[in-house]
């Protein structure tokens, strides 16, 4: 230990306020970026979970996945082409 007592450690011969301010802000901003990242993840997960339930409410998991995976798709056929041309 480079200090004689705990109070000497806090005061640091007058440099305490500078040192502790730095360390305080350091831990604060580190916590902030972690919190922001976790919040982003939760947002993405929650939005997708909501969309999946909206796509097919009251279905079981397996059926729901198949439904959203399939969905409606416009398939161009020769018939529809000839209609649009005529």
């Amino acid at each position: 230990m480079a200090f004689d007592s705990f109070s000497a450690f806090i005061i640091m011969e007058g440099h305490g306020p500078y040192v502790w301010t730095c360390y305080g802000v350091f831990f604060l901003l580190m916590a902030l970026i972690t919190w922001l990242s976790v919040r982003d993840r939760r947002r993405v997960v929650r939005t997708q979970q909501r969309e999946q339930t909206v796509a097919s409410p009251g279905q079981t998991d397996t059926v729901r996945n198949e439904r959203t995976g399939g969905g409606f798709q416009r398939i161009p056929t020769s018939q529809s082409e000839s209609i649009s041309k005529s």
Partner: protein
Amino acid sequence: MWQFFHKLGSPKWFYGIAGRFMPWLLGLGLVLSLAGIVWGLAFAPQDYLQGNSYRIIFIHVPTAFLAQSVYMMMAVAGVITLVWKMKLADVFVRAAAPVGAILTVLALFTGAVWGKPTWGTWWIWDARLTSMLILLFLYLGIIGLSHAYSDEKTAARAVAVLTVVGVVNIPIIKYSVNWWNTLHQPATFKLTEKPTMVPEMWVPLLLAVLGTYLLFGWVSLYRMQTEVLRRERRTRWVKDVIAAGGGSQLKSGGA
């Protein structure tokens, strides 16, 4: 090598491998950086000139070092985006930019608070401090630009160009203390020479730098995973991950 490159293009493979690395990065990063900080704060000897205020170095150097290092990684990713159009490189730039910005803010703030008792001023418009401020503006510009386009490909290209152009600032930061007269002290660690400090000071500093590096690895992989989940939300495997709560570990291995 090419197989690795090809695999890196697979978002699911990336998600799984990132999830496997992340607990190690977080655990080891916390242990190393906390060990470095506690050692530096309470056990390292006083500086004969600066007294105890120098103890700020144990967070100032790691954050300043990382701020530049992260930018270099982003610039490499930017080149990869422009040349090979690899999506994961753009995902990295997006994920890392806010972290880099926060690290730059920390480097500037701890530097200012350290400057007050040491130089007698919070701020001076000299080369090192000004170029570091420009780095912060570059980070903010990249973050802003990445949200400015609705089209993902256009955004990726624009962000990559800005990142690559901005890399010119990095050697300016690095050599500013040698090229110009400045209040800032020269680098503590050099590749070619022994550190100018005693081991009781530079060993905890090195621990703190390594620890912060690993913690950056953890948070950037976590953020990249989130971006992958958002971009690949239509795929089956992401739907499974989302249904399971969006955890970082993939339940079943293999691609």
